[in-house]
Every structure is written in structure tokens, then in C-alpha cells.
């Protein structure tokens, strides 16, 4: 099935970024299905994956409506190539070990919980409806991942070592959460998207509290990765999309 190309406006690009981040992170979490350290956690991680998949579906539906060419959520998810994906890089990194997954989910949720809270007063009514739902879901993701972060950070020697390693790898990817380019500026201007600068203090407070409880040092300021929002990705996304998109591309229109 051939790749589609969208006519992007800032508004469409903005919604696609949110949709892509939710979908890609959902897929990474779904990779734990059948592989989590215990059955209870297998269910917890796939529950989170399904929440994010639900958010991605609503956001793609919204994006398709904004584009107005009659495309479906599936077209947007399955018929675009890696350079057209605009997810945050932190979402596409391979799932790693359990500590890596916990640290990533904590960092991403610590950003998106206040993000969705603020998005409830967006001028985009559809985004408001999505935010109402997502805010509650992400509150739980943060609670769950945060509880594990505390237990792994302040757990055994091995759990602490793995958590610190994950933090070292992931921290340089947190800069992108707060990046504002011309699309972001236009969305803040139009009252559609929250200003990441107003999310920063809440994000920092959440991490201060969790890291103190987990007895983990706050990572030192460092050089930050960038690119995902513009479609410049790590080598991992293409491989992930090959798996995720294989079926609908090989068998167009396939149904259960």
C-alpha cells in the first residue's frame, strides 16, 4: 500500500505530533505483553498502552477531520513513513528493561499530566474533549510509574543501578518535551495548545518529589536531543513501524 502525504497546516501538524507520540509509546508498551516481570504488571502495562492507543485514535480522527480529505485514523497511523512521523523521540526508544520502561513512563507522564490539564481550556473543542479523558488516564500512569520508580530507585542494588542507567539514557530526551518551534508558537498564540513553559514548574515539582522519595539524584543539565517533532528520528522508529505497519500495508483493508 502506498504511502500517503498530508497537506499540513500548523494545527494539523500539532495534532499529529500528539497522536504520533501516543501511538508510538503505546506500541512500545504493548511490546511488554506476555513479557512483563509478573502477570499483574503485564496487565498494568498493556492497560496503559490501551489508554494511549485510545488517545491516539481520537487524535488521528481529529487530524483526519482537520485535513478534510476523508482519510481514516488507520490511514494516518499505518500509511505514513518514519520521516512523516512527528512523535517525541523519547517515545520511540526500544522498550529496554523494566527500569527503562518505568523511568520513561514517569518522565512522559510527568509532562503530559499537566499538559492535558491545561489543554482542557484549549480553544479547540475536540482537543478539550480528548484532554478531559486523557487527563484522568495519565494521572494514573504517573501514579503507577512513579510508584515503581520509588521502589526501583530505593530498592535493591541492581534495581537502583538499572534505574540510574535508564535515567542517564533518557534524560537528554526530555528537552524535546518543552520545545517550541513555529508550529508550537502558532498554537500557543491561537490558544489551541498549552505553553510548555507553564508546564515546566509542575514537571519539576513532580520529579523533585518522586526523586527524593526514590533517593535518586536529579540528573545534571546536559545537551538535549531534538528532531522528532520535525520528523528526524532515531534509527529505531523505522524498525518499529516496519513491524507495526506490516499487516495493513501488505493486506490493504484487512479486517478481523
Amino acid at each position, binding site marked *: 500500500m502506498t504511502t500517503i502525504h498530508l497537506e499540513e497546516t500548523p494545527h494539523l501538524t500539532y495534532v499529529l505530533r500528539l497522536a504520533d507520540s501516543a501511538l508510538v509509546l503505546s506500541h512500545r508498551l504493548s511490546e511488554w505483553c506476555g513479557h512483563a516481570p*509478573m*502477570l*499483574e*504488571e503485564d*496487565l*498494568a502495562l498493556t*492497560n496503559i498502552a490501551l489508554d494511549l492507543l485510545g488517545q491516539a485514535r481520537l487524535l488521528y480522527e481529529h487530524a483526519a477531520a482537520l485535513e478534510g480529505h476523508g482519510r481514516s485514523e488507520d490511514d494516518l497511523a499505518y500509511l505514513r513513513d518514519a520521516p512523516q512521523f512527528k512523535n517525541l523521540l523519547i517515545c520511540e526508544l526500544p522498550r529496554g528493561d523494566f527500569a527503562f520502561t518505568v523511568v520513561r513512563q514517569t518522565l512522559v507522564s510527568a509532562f503530559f499530566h499537566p499538559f492535558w490539564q491545561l489543554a482542557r481550556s484549549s480553544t479547540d473543542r475536540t482537543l478539550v474533549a480528548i484532554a478531559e479523558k486523557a487527563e484522568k488516564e495519565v494521572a494514573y500512569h504517573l*501514579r*503507577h510509574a512513579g*510508584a*515503581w520508580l520509588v*521502589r526501583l530507585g530505593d530498592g535493591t542494588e541492581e534495581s537502583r543501578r538499572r534505574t540510574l542507567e535508564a535515567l542517564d539514557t533518557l534524560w537528554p530526551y526530555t528537552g524535546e518535551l518543552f520545545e517550541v518551534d513555529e508550529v508550537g508558537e502558532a498554537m500557543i498564540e491561537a490558544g489551541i495548545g498549552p505553553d510548555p513553559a507553564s508546564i515546566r514548574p509542575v514537571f519539576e515539582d513532580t520529579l523533585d518529589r518522586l526523586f527524593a522519595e526514590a533517593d535518586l539524584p536529579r540528573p545534571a543539565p546536559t545537551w538535549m536531543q531534538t528532531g522528532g517533532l520535525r520528523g528526524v528520528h532515531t534509527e529505531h522508529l523505522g524498525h518499529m513501524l516496519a513491524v507495526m505497519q506490516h499487516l495493513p500495508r501488505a493486506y490493504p483493508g484487512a479486517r478481523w
Partner: protein
Amino acid sequence: MAEAKMPLWEVFIRSRTGLAHRHVGSVHAADAEMALQAARDTYTRRGEGLSIWVVPSAAITASDPAEKGPLFEPTASKIYRHPSFYEIPEEVGHM
């Protein structure tokens, strides 16, 4: 070893306001907070719950199945304890 770090917890869910919590199963978890989350993720996936209790399985004192004779058989001959011998007056309606 694994059992000591991840003990078993019994899960009770209240499905609707006014109903009692009912035992629904068990989960493994390191502590009470994680047991509550595991119970939420395992047993309330289809909108079953309004409230969750978790109790360490070790805190439950159970009757010995070998004693079921002395414990439960004596009631078998006391059928008059069942309310089926009373006639309910019409005015009371459905009970």
C-alpha cells in the same frame, strides 16, 4: 524468595454503592499501594469497581477443611432456621 518479596494479597471489590465488597481473587505485590494498583489493573478492567480493598493473604485465618464435619454438618438438621416456613402477608410485598 520470590514469595517473600512479592507476597499474595486478597482483593475485594465493591461494584455498586450500597453493596458489600466481594472477594474477587488475589494478586502478587510488594506492598499495599502496589497491591491496590495491581488489583485495579487486574480486576476492574471492565468497569466493575467503585471501591477496592486489599488484604495480605497471610492476615486471613481460615477454617480447616478437615473440620468441616464438626463445623458445618450440625446445621443440616436445623432446617427450621430457613425462612421458608413463614407465610409473608400480602401487604409486605416482595422481600
